[in-house]
Each structure stands twice: as structure tokens, then as C-alpha cells.
């Protein structure tokens, strides 16, 4: 397995946000993680990448147990994530942002003296073009639209040369065109990159994913092929239940 979690658990006070999750993602898979709001998807991501410490459980990357490793070490072993809420560098341009990730992962040395960074810049611009941000490289990040920032997040994540790419709602806030570009990017991903994606847009999920795990109230409700998930009564129930609750709150 490219990624395996066993019994992952994390509580916030009395709330068990992630409540004993076993997850197995096959190498090269396009694995989607879905579930209603508050299901614990983002928390699970953070436990996997080490951004947040788990209360219990283990995480294995490939055949290596990374539970005790920091986020930094896990990133260097090939985990790369985008955040649900785009979180970037306010004083930098798009190219500088990607270059920061490129210089860390392309083997060029991070020297405390200036050095020619032409290769780094070129790679950064290539990555920007790849996600649909060609020509936007010199734009300051705060001037990018919300959707563009999400595209930039994807470029940054790819710049880390991941073997396991985790995208948390990458399409949220994207325009239809940006969304279409994202689907292309995901389709073009090299086969040796394993993808784990959280997404609410089920059309996007079913067009990309070859495996789906449904999370509900911090637990795995179902794990299977897209068809199995689509057919499942429980899943419909979970989503409908969530909808009904929303209507309750709104009404």
C-alpha cells in the first residue's frame, strides 16, 4: 500500500473528529475521500501528513511507519498536501511561492548566499503553466483570485515532487474553467504519484477517482469502487441526513 492508516484517532474535547480510521490507498491510486461537512476529512488529512498529532493509531507511507516522524520529515519522504483554505505567502509572487517549494525539493542547495536560480524559476514557471497559471507568475499572491490561489496551491504541492499527493477540496471556489483545468491536471498526473483527494463536487470525484472512501462522523462508512459507493444506501443516508440537518439549522 502507498498509504495505510490504522486506528487513527483524534479528539477535540468530547468530539471525536477522527474516530479510529483504517485507510488503505493503493500505489498509483486515484483515491477520493468524501463525506458530509464535519465528517473529519480535513482532520484525517492533517493526521496523515503530520500537521496534527494523532491521539492514537499509526500511519505508514509505503512500507515505512511514519507515525513518529514530523511533518517536515514526512514531506521529505514524499507526502505533499494542499490545505482546504488556501494558505500561502502574502508578500510573494506566484513564481516566488512555487520556487520556494521547488528549491526545497529539486536537490539544489539552499545556500545563505545568492546563487543562480534560473533552473528553479523555470521549473516554477513550468509548474504554474501546468495548473493553468501561465503568465500569472509575477502577480503577487494577494492579487490572485480565489480560484487562482487554489490552482497555485496545487502547483506548490506538485513542486514538492510528491509520491503521495493529498488535495483537500482543491476545486472549492474555482470557476468552471479552472475546475476543468484541474480535472485535466489530475488526469495528467504521472502514474507513480498516488492521489488522495477530498472533494465535495461528486461529479469531479467520480470523473477522477478509481477508489472512494466515505467518512461519516469520524468513521469510515464505506470504502470501495465509485460504483459501489454510488449504489450504497448508507452513503445516501449519510448525505441526506446531513442535508436534513442543514435545513433544520437554516429553517
Amino acid at each position: 500500500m502507498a498509504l495505510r492508516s490504522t486506528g487513527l484517532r483524534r479528539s477535540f474535547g468530547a468530539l471525536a473528529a477522527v474516530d479510529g480510521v483504517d485507510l488503505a490507498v493503493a500505489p498509483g491510486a486515484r483515491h477520493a475521500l468524501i463525506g458530509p461537512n464535519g465528517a473529519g476529512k480535513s482532520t484525517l488529512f492533517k493526521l496523515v501528513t503530520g500537521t496534527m498529532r494523532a491521539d492514537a493509531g499509526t500511519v505508514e507511507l509505503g512500507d515505512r511507519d511514519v507515525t513518529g516522524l514530523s511533518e517536515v520529515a514526512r514531506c521529505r519522504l514524499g507526502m505533499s498536501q494542499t490545505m482546504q483554505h488556501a494558505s500561502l505567502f502574502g508578500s510573494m509572487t506566484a513564481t516566488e511561492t512555487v520556487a520556494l517549494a521547488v528549491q526545497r525539493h529539486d536537490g539544489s542547495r539552499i545556500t545563505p548566499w545568492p546563487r543562480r536560480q534560473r533552473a528553479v524559476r523555470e521549473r516554477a514557471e513550468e509548474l504554474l503553466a501546468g495548473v493553468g497559471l501561465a503568465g500569472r507568475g509575477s502577480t503577487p499572491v494577494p492579487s490572485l483570485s480565489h480560484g487562482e490561489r487554489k490552482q497555485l496551491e496545487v502547483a506548490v504541492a506538485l513542486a514538492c515532487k510528491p509520491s503521495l499527493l493529498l488535495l483537500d477540496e482543491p476545486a472549492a471556489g474555482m470557476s468552471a474553467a479552472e475546475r476543468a483545468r484541474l480535472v485535466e491536471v489530475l488526469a495528467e498526473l504521472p502514474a507513480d504519484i498516488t492521489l488522495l483527494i477530498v472533494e465535495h463536487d461528486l461529479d469531479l470525484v467520480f470523473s477522477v477517482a478509481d477508489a472512494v472512501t466515505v467518512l461519516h462522523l469520524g468513521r469510515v462508512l464505506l470504502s470501495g469502487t465509485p460504483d459501489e459507493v454510488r449504489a450504497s444506501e448508507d452513503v445516501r443516508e449519510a448525505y441526506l441526513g446531513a442535508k436534513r440537518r442543514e435545513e433544520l439549522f437554516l429553517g
Partner: protein
Amino acid sequence: MTAVQTRIPVADAPAEPNRLRRGLPRIVAVAVVLVLAAAPLFLAPFATTTLTRIVVFALFAVSLDLLVGITGLPSLGHAAYFGAGAYAAGWVSINVTAEAPVPLLVGAATGAVAAALTGWITVRTGGVFFLMLTLAIGETVQQLANTWEDATGGANGLTGVPSVRLAGEPLVNAGYLYWYVLAIGVVGFALVWLVARSPWGAALRGIRDNEPRMRALGYPTAVYKYAVFVLAGSVAGVAGSLLVAQQRLVTPADLSFLTSSFALLAVVIGGAGSLWGACLGAAVVVLVRETLGASLDGHGPLVLGLVFVLVVYLLPRGAAGLRWPRRDKGRST
């Protein structure tokens, strides 16, 4: 052949203004250094001494800007490393040798060691805790200077420091001393400037903007912050050794909170993150404190307080914000 030759300038034409704009800061920098170097030739010795003090304080402010402006670590106790360097350089000048590179290297090493001893815990805190911890370090070091009389001379300070010597010759003349200070100041500035422009400097700015994201990108941010803390301490120590070369005296006031806050003020006036701005700010601070301050009945700090309030309200980006108005109108967040 002619066709080719005419085409080249045409192709190059749009690049011309850009190249000029990129070359301009370099030309200005060289001009400023030349004017500074020539200054003692037409300044009175008193003015040369003030200029010397400005250069010393500017290097100190630049080292602080590396922390505050570039890395986003707002230290309130940076004078501890400045003062530690000054005391060590003074002590070695009195007891061992005042021969040129020695006090300088001792100052640099002392600043670095002091920062290395205090930095590891400090950089792992953030927000208010960082402010309080750096403040506490500053106070502690000042107490140490006050009480460790054998080495520091206590409240009277370390007096009777001999002139720094260059190749055996003591630099008594104000002009020669100024050139010595200026040369080291320029080298120190260039060092910090190079660091700020390096890939490492880019990582420091990333930490300032968004440290959690930098960790997610695989940067061990605590290590980066610790390293820059030590470097800034070392540069402050060098500035301290220049201070003692100029004053021939170090007192606990030199590592007081007031000294730290004057340096912070210089950084804010210049625009945090802008190194030349910090130098400009240092000039303003020293001039107000020494020139205006005397004529204002010792109310220099009050005037500086007013300057601070004005700068914060009128120039949130400091002097650096004056020169280059931001063009990105679409700034949304």
C-alpha cells in the same frame, strides 16, 4: 549583415529601461558608499564622530532587521548581543590586544555564542511569548553587566578601553577611526544583504509570511530561525565591537531595553524588511537623539516617540514604502 546589426538594437530596446532600472540601485549604492567614504575630508571632527555613531548603529539596526523585517521575529532584547559584543571587544582590548581584527572577531563570536545559548528556546516560542522572552533576556544580560563588576566594571561601565590598532598604529584620529568603522559596517551590511537575497533568505521570508505552510513544504523552520538568530547576534556583536572602538567605553545602558527599542524604531522608520531603510532609520534615531536631544533638555526619547507614532500612522511601510508606491491595486487580502 547590416540588417542583422539594425535588428539587434531593436530587439534590445524594450529591455533597456529595465536594465537601467535594475542598474540604478547599484549605482546609487556605490555613490552612497563613495560619499560616505569621502565625508571626513570635508566634515568637522565632531560631525565625523556623529557619522561614525550612525554607521555603528546602522549595522546594529540592520542585524535586527534581519530578525524583525525578514524573518518576522520581533526581538525586544537584541541589544543584549550588541552589548555582549561590545563588552567582550572592550575587555579583550584592555586585557589582551586592541590589534584590529581581534576585538572585531571577539565581538562577533561573543554575539554569536550569546545568541546561540539563548536562541534555541526563544525561536521556538511565538507571539507574546517571544516578545517577553527576548525582553527577559535583555534585562538579564543587563543585570549581569551591572553586577559582574570584575569583568564589566559594574554600573560605571568598562572604562579605559584603548584605541583600536591597525597594523600596530592606534586609530586616534576621528577620520581614520571612521574609515575603519565604515569599512566593517559596509562589509557587515553586504553580508546581511547577500543573505537576504539568497535562497535561504527567501525561506526566511516564507517563515515570516506563513510558518506552518513552510513546515508543510518540508522546511525545518526552527532550525532556520535559530540559525538566523545566531547570525543576527553575531552581526550585532560586530556592531558592538565598533561601538567600543568609537566610545572607548561600554556601559550597561548600551545593552538596555532603551537601546533595543531605539534599534526597533530605526527598523520601523526605515520600513521593516528594507535593509537600507534600517540604515536611514538609524541615522534619524542617532541624529534626533544626539543633536536634537541635547537642545531639547534631554527629551530626545520623547521626540523619537513622536517620530514613531507619526511613522506608524503616516508611513506603515516606513521610508521604504515612500520610494516604491505599491502598484498592485487588486490587493484583496
